[in-house]
Structures are given as C-alpha cells and as structure tokens.
C-alpha cells in the first residue's frame, strides 16, 4: 500500500514541473532589450549617447585588469592573445592582468570582487552572464573604477562604455540572409548554444524573429547543442533522419553548423545552405572543402578585444566615448571565403586577426 502511495508522489513532481514550465513560458522575462528591424534598438540609441569620461581622467601609463572568458575555446583564446599582444605593445599600458573565468560566471563574480580590491585604473569585462555580473559592475563603478564592458552586455548598463557587435543583429542577419537565399521558402533547422546562456538565447531569439517574416520557411527542428561540434553532429544526424528534406541550416555559433556539415556528409545527403554567426576558421575550412553555400556574420573576438583596450585608454585619457561602441560585423558568403579563411591557422581560430599573425601562431594556433 505504502509503495503505491509513493509512486503517486511522483505525480506531483511531474505536475509541479509542468506547472512551472507552462507558467514560466508565459511569464518569461520581459526585461529583454527592445529590438526592431533586426537590430537592438537600445544599443542603437546607446551608440548616440556620448559619455563624459573626464572624471576618470588620469595620467598614464595605466594598470588594467581584464576579466575574460578564458581559453576554453578558440574564440576565448583569440581574444586573450589579442589582448596580451596589445598590452605588450601599447605604451599607454603599464600592466594588464588577465583573469580568465573559464566560462564560469560564479568564478568571474569572485574575480570582480578580488580585482576591485587591487584598484586597477580600469576593469575590462567580458561578462559570462548579462545578469550574473550586473551587480558586480555597479559595485566596481561605485568603488571608483571605470568598467569597460565588451563581448557581451550587462543588465542595468552601469558600465562606462560597451564595445561589441550587435549580437542580436548578426544572428538576425544570418537568418535573414539564409531565408533570402532560399527564396523565402523551404525547411530550416536551427541550432543553439547552451540553454540559458545569454549569447545562445539572444541569437535564438534573433533567428526566430527573422524567420517570422518568411511564412513559407518552415522550422523543422530547433535544438540546443552546447556550441559543441560533437553534440551538433549528433543532433543534426537525428534531425536529418527525421526530416527527408532540409534546405537550410541556421546555427547560432558556427560550431553546430560544422557538426551539421559532417552529419550531412555521413548521411550522404546533399548539403543545405548555411546561415551562421561567429564563423570559425574550422567552419570556413570545411565550407571550402565541401563547397558549402553559406552566409556568415562574424562575432570577431580579436577586433572587439582590441577595441576594448582602446576604449579603456580613451576613457582614462578623458576622451569621449559612446555608451555603445559598435564594432563592424560585415557579413559575407562563400565567394569571399578566401579573404577570411587562413589556412596557416588552426580550426579554433576565429578570424579576423587584430594582432600580427605571429602572435596567434606562437600561442599555439598554428595548423
């Protein structure tokens, strides 16, 4: 009797979960930034706001602390290498302390607290979570240290300036370009990064928003694959099996697209057209080797990292900066592949370069 009663206690578990799920999806965050026409409206506005930096003005050379994602993937390494090169070759910089979070927001929050105690002239932050780091940024600013955010935004915008591409825009453009190449109709599968991680969710939203304008585009699969080539390939293989016709693959981050190329090859199916953001050197290599048709929109770590340092120095010199310093993110397709692909560098490298090639080669990114 007792046992049956406990089997029944399983039901509340399922019910509770489902209740939360349905309640949650309806109340899902309303704090998402306003977006329209494929761009983030608030960032566009921020790009017009001039920040007065006179109160941060100091004489150099400066001691900077950079909190970065860390070399857990090629994107992070490209970023770190670029920053380290800049730090060494910029006469305005006395010292740059690089504190990699290795992808962990908790670690980065702790690092923020540690860094504030060391009183650097400025903190350069690539936040591991828009939300997670929000209060940390306010606290650092309150402690009198200018925070220059780059690579990912932070809720509340308490920072001095933010340099990045428009994350929403690149993913939107990739989807839009893909839809256009498909002449507005066909079956598309979408891949996303890690559920709950900002970039993944922003890109997912952007892709979905873009496809909404094409009623004849049918989303036949939408899967998270953890920015992993392996998981991307596994999920792609399942979707290929489930769908006899796939015309396009949109991937929020090119890792899953890379996996999908491999999966289509294995299945002996014709390669679809790809729409990706953040193309890695590896994606470009496979695209070249397989004659893939694609549209790619970069989320380039090297130029953003360089801009991050440049902006920090501007702030410290009292020069005016914009609240949002937009970085160029021009899309391209297979016809311009060779301008972006570098056969000397390895698959993990994310083009383009912002430091001399030798810097990347000696960091271990040679093929």
């Amino acid at each position, binding site marked *: 009797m*007792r*046992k049956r009663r*406990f*089997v029944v*206690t*399983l039901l*509340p*578990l399922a019910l509770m*979960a489902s209740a*939360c*799920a*349905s309640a*949650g*999806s309806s*109340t*899902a*965050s309303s*704090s*998402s930034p306003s977006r329209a026409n494929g761009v983030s409206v608030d960032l566009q506005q921020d790009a017009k706001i001039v920040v007065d930096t006179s109160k941060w003005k100091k004489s150099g050379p400066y001691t900077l602390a950079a909190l970065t994602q860390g*070399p857990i993937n090629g994107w992070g390494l490209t970023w*770190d290498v670029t920053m380290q090169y800049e730090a060494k070759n910029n006469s305005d910089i006395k010292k740059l*302390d*690089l*504190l*990699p979070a*290795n992808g*962990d*927001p*908790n*670690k980065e*929050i*702790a*690092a923020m*607290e*540690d860094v504030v*105690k*060391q009183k650097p002239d400025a903190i350069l932050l690539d936040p*591991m*979570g*828009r*939300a*997670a*780091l*929000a*209060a*940390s940024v*306010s*606290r650092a600013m309150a402690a009198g240290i200018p925070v220059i955010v780059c690579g990912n935004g932070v*809720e*509340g915008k308490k920072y001095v300036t933010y340099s990045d591409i428009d994350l929403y825009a690149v993913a939107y453009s990739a989807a839009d370009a893909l839809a256009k190449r498909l002449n507005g109709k066909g079956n598309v599968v979408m891949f996303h990064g*890690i*559920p*709950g*991680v*900002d970039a*993944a*969710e*922003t890109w*997912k*939203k952007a892709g979905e928003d873009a496809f909404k304008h094409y009623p004849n585009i049918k989303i036949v699969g939408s899967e998270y694959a953890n920015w992993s080539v392996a998981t991307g390939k596994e999920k792609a293989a399942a979707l290929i099996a489930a769908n006899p016709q796939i015309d396009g693959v949109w991937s929020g981050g090119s890792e899953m697209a890379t996996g999908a190329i491999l999966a289509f090859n294995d299945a002996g199916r014709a390669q679809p057209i790809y729409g990706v953001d953040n193309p890695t050197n590896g994606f470009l290599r496979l695209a070249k080797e397989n004659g893939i048709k694609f549209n790619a929109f970069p989320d380039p770590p090297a130029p953003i990292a360089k801009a991050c340092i440049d902006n920090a120095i501007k702030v410290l010199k009292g020069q005016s900066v914009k609240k949002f310093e937009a970085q160029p993110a021009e899309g391209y397709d297979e016809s311009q592949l060779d301008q972006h692909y570098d056969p000397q560098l390895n698959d993990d490298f994310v083009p383009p370069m912002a430091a001399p090639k030798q810097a990347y080669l000696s960091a271990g990114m040679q093929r």
Partner: protein
Amino acid sequence: MSLTLERPVVGERRAETVSAVRRHGAVLFIYSLVVILLIAASAVSSDFRQPSNLIDVLRQSIVLGLVTIGQTYVLLAGGIDMSVGMTSRVVALGTAVAMSHTLIHPYVLILLGLIGGGLIGFLNGRLITGLGAAPFIVTLGMMGALAGTALAISGGGPTDAVPDFFLAAYDASMGPIPVAVLVMAVIWLVAWFVLSRTRFGRNIYAVGGSTAVARLAAIDVRRTQTSTYVIAGVLSAAAGLFLLARSGVGDPSLGGNLEFQSIVAAAIGGISLYGGRGSLVGSLGAVLLVSLSSNVMNMLHVSAYYQDLALGVIVLLGVAVYRPRRSM
C-alpha cells in the same frame, strides 16, 4: 564484585594520541593547508594580505558554504544530494520572476523561496525513503527536472532586476565586516550546534552509521533522512537567494556545478561519503580552502591553463589523506 573488564592495553596513551590524530587527520590536514596557503600567499602578494581581501574571501565562500552545510547533513545521514545546485537556480529564478510579476511583498517571496527549496528537499527525501531508491539517482533525476524547470521559468534569458533592498542586503556591513558574512557565521554555528548538541543531530549520525541500529533505538529513520534533504533544500534555496542578491538579476546559469563542489568540499573536509562520520568543522575548512585557493590564483594571476590543474591537485591532496577506517 570487583570484576572489571578494564585491562590496560599496551601503549594505550600513545595509541590514544595516535587515534586522535588519525580521527581528526583529514580536518587537521585541511586546516594546515589553509594556514600554509594563507602564509605563502601573504608573503608573495601584498594585495592578498589586505584585510579587506580576506573578508572578501569569506564572502565568496558563502554560497558554497550554505550548500556544503546542507550536503554535509545529507551525507552524514547516509545520503547524497545531486540536486542542490539546480535547487538554488530554480529558487533564485522563481523568486526573481515572482518579484517583478506579482504584487506579493518581496519578503514573503523570499520566505516562499526558502519553503520551495524545502519542498524540493522533502520530495527528494520522500522519494528516496519511500521508494528505497538510490539517493544518487533520485537526486540526479531531480537535478534534471529542476534544470528543465529553471529554463522554463526564465525562458532562457535573464529575469528582471530585483528590488534594491535586496542588493543592499548583500552590501550591508557592520564596521568592516559584511552582514552576510556575520549571518553566515551564525548559520555555521547553528548548523554545527544542531549537529553536535541536539538529539536530532545525534540521530543523523546514528542513521548514517547504521539504519538498523538507529531503528532499534526507536529513531524514525525515514523522518531523519527526509529532514536532512529538507535542510539541504532550504540552504540551497538560501544560496540561490544570495546569488540573486549578488547579481541583482536572475541569471539562468546560476548555481551550476554546486552539487559537485559541495560534495567534494564535504569529502575533503572529512565527511564520509558512506555516512555517519565527519563534522562541520572539517566542511568549513574545506570550503575556506576552496575559496582561498581560487582567490590566491586570481591574486597571483595564475594562467588560465593551469588554474584547473592547480585546483585539481589541491583536491587530490585534500582527499589523499584518507586513511583506512578501523573496523570494529
């Protein structure tokens, strides 16, 4: 009758000292590691030496500390809780969403959040004691269900900002010491006191030592075990709320890996993963050690390539002091 069984055992006094050292070996080792790390880092880094930095280390240890206390209770009663990290995530996100979408007073919501954590723990406990299923798997399943629930609640993105008083609570301090650290110290004390000075606490040791013996001593084994999961749930919820106060906004990646970190911390601190042995003093040492080593690495700017390796070696050192338990 003058008969007695007290016969002098050879070298008894020396054996007693040895056994005391051995009994507390893991704990002594952890604290000596903490001290060594403190001295070495102070000698090398002037930033590290600052009292404010040390206070920060204490504040950074709060999240892991809260969860580890709960985990210690569960482990001592012979269980294991893999769902603590996701409990803190669900509670943090749920509370954050409720704070901006309902008219309920935030204080009430905080209370509800803690109760919610307790309910999750209660469900864990009932499933484990009721079904007699392996705690590892039940709580692993719960971890999955909660991870999914967290995604559903947040819709994947950050939630709205929480009220300012919540943030202020994180920053509040009495003199140089943050209130949060003081509260945490009180929680450690209470948790330690309950475990070592109350009937309930001793019952936990008894249940973890042997459910059969505990049952014979008229201890309600199921209730005791379930209570430990409830405690773990409430403390995880508290950790989630603390994370929320630290971030100011509910982030859907909060609380990841806490389950592993807390189990490893407890184990380094000398808590037997088979139940019934160890104390919160050891757990506290391990939590301090982990927070301290992460801080030291930041202060000394250890390369990212070697940070994980260094942490792993510290964990290995910590656990390698284990010694065979003398059987009866």
